[in-house]
C-alpha cells in the first residue's frame, strides 16, 4: 500500500500498456521505457506485467504504512528516506512499516519508474492498468496522483531477494536513429538537409502524446494528406515545419507528412528527453534498423 503525502509533477500508474485496441482509436500506451519498468519489477520479484509508477521531473513523497519492497529505475532523482538510509537506484530496497520515500528533482534525464512488491492493484481497464491520460481512463481514477491518494498493492509472492540491475549504457548525446518515413519523398532537398543537419530543442509543450521540437524548419510542399496510421516514434512535419515526434499516448492516425520513424531500440531514449534538450537525427536503412538488438538490463543477486 502507498499513501501519497505529496504528489510529484505528474505521477502515473503504468504497466506495459494495452496493445490490440488501435482500431478503436486507443494507442498501446504504457511505460515510456517498458524495459526499465520491467527491470524494477524484477528487482522486487514481481510479475513482469505488474503496474508501477512512472514519475517525471519532480517526484512525489510516498508513505508505505506496511513497509514494502521497492525499486527505482530510470533517471536518477534527488531522493531521501525517513529512516535516513540511502536511496540507491537499480537495487532492491526494503522499506520498514511507516517509512516515507521522498523524490525531489530529476538530476538528469526526465523519467524514473518505481515498482512495489506485489504490484499496484488499481483496476485494469481494457486489459491494462496503464493510465491513458488523454481520455482519462486506466491508472488511478484516470488521473495523475494527488496528495491523499491511497494505492493498494497485490500480495508479494515468495521471499525477497536483494538484487541489483545494470542499466544498458545508452549513448545519451548520440543522434536519434531514424528510418525513412512514408512521406519522406514529399520533403524537398532543403527540408531534408535542415532535418538531418539541424539541432532541435525539445519544447516545454511536450508530453506523452508527442515531443514538440523547435529548430530549422523542415520545408515541404504542403498537400492535403489522407489520415494514415501512425505509431510512437513517427516524426510528423506540420505546416510550420517544426517536427513532432509522436509519443506513447499519441493519436493512432494523423494527417501530417511523416518524414521519419525513430528506430524501436532508440524509443526508450525519448523517455529521458526534457524541455530544452538537444535532438539530432541520423538516417539508417530499414534492414539495418531491424538488425539492431534491444539493449538488455542485467539483474544479479547482491551477495
Amino acid at each position, binding site marked *: 500500500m502507498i499513501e501519497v503525502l505529496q504528489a510529484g509533477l505528474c505521477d502515473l500508474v503504468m504497466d506495459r500498456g494495452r496493445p490490440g485496441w488501435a*482500431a478503436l482509436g*486507443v494507442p498501446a500506451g504504457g511505460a515510456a521505457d517498458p524495459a526499465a519498468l520491467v527491470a524494477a519489477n524484477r528487482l522486487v520479484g514481481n510479475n513482469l506485467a505488474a503496474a508501477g509508477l512512472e514519475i517525471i521531473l519532480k517526484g512525489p513523497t510516498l508513505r508505505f504504512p506496511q513497509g514494502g519492497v521497492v525499486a527505482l529505475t530510470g533517471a536518477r532523482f534527488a531522493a531521501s528516506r525517513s529512516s535516513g538510509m540511502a536511496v540507491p537506484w537499480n537495487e532492491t530496497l526494503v522499506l520498514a512499516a511507516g517509512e516515507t520515500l521522498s523524490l525531489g528533482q530529476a538530476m538528469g534525464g526526465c523519467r524514473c519508474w518505481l515498482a512495489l512488491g506485489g504490484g499496484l492493484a488499481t483496476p485494469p481497464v481494457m486489459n491494462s492498468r496503464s493510465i491513458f491520460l488523454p481520455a*482519462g481512463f486506466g491508472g488511478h481514477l484516470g488521473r495523475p496522483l494527488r496528495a491523499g491518494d491511497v494505492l493498494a498493492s497485490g500480495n508479494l509472492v515468495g521471499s525477497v531477494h536483494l538484487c541489483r540491475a545494470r542499466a544498458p549504457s545508452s549513448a545519451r548525446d548520440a543522434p536519434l536513429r531514424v*528510418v*525513412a518515413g512514408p512521406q519522406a519523398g514529399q520533403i524537398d532537398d532543403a527540408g531534408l538537409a535542415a532535418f538531418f543537419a539541424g539541432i532541435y530543442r525539445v519544447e516545454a509543450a511536450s508530453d506523452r502524446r508527442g515531443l514538440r521540437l523547435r529548430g530549422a524548419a523542415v520545408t515541404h510542399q504542403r498537400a492535403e494528406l489522407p*489520415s*494514415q496510421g501512425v505509431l510512437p516514434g513517427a516524426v510528423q512535419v506540420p505546416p510550420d515545419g517544426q517536427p513532432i515526434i509522436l509519443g506513447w499516448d499519441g493519436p493512432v*492516425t494523423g494527417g501530417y507528412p511523416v518524414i521519419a520513424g525513430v528506430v*524501436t531500440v532508440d524509443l526508450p531514449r525519448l523517455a529521458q528527453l526534457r524541455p530544452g534538450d538537444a535532438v539530432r537525427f541520423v538516417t539508417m536503412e530499414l534492414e539495418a534498423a531491424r538488425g539492431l538488438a534491444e539493449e538488455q538490463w542485467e539483474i544479479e543477486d547482491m551477495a
Partner: protein
Amino acid sequence: MGKYTSGQSHVHPGWRWVGERGLRVATGDATLAHYDVLISRKFTEIEDIILADGSLLLILRQGATVSEGLRTALLAPSADVPATTGKLHEIAVEYGGAVGPDLPALAELAGMDTAAYISSHAAADYVVAFLGFQPGFPYLRGLPAALHAPRRASPRLQVAAGSVAIGGTYTGIYPAGGPGGWQIIGRTASVLFDPQRAAPALLMPGDRVRFVPR
C-alpha cells in the same frame, strides 16, 4: 542527401514503413475488407492494426517480419474477401442552435436552408471507415458531396462530447470533450466510447449509421 526514399517496402511498391515495426499498406476502397481478413486470420506477427483513410497500418511485434501467409493475404485481390456486414446504428441528433453552432454557415456554404441541410445529413447512409483522433471517434463515409466542408481555420478549444461534426468529406461524432477543428452541426446523447464496457466503442469499423433528427 543521397537517396532518402519514402520508406519503401521491398515487398510491394505500394507499401511503406512507418518506423521498422509499422507497415502501411495502401488498401483504397477495400480497407475494411482487408481489415476483416486480417482479423479473421489472426496473423501472429501482427500486434495491432490501425485503420485509416484508404490504408491500414500493421504494427508488427518487435522483431517480427511479414510472413509469406500475411504477404499473400495482403496481395490477394479484394474479390476473395467477405463483404462487411456492419451493424446498423440509429443515432438521435439535436441539430443546430447552441449545440450546432456551425450549422447556419455550413447550410449557406451548401446553398440550402438549415432544414434542407439537416434532411440531407440525416437521409444519408453512413459507414464507419475508421476510428481515430480520440478513442471511439468515427470517421463516417457517405456524406453527400454538397455537405462537404473544410475544417475550421482555427480549432475550438472546447468541443462538447457527443458533438456531430463535418470535417472535409467525413462526418463524425466527438466521443469526449476537448479541442477540435471540425464544424459542429448538432449533438447526440449516445455514449460513443466507454472504456468500462465490454465493447468500449459504440461504433466499429464497417458498422452502418443513420442520424435521426429529434
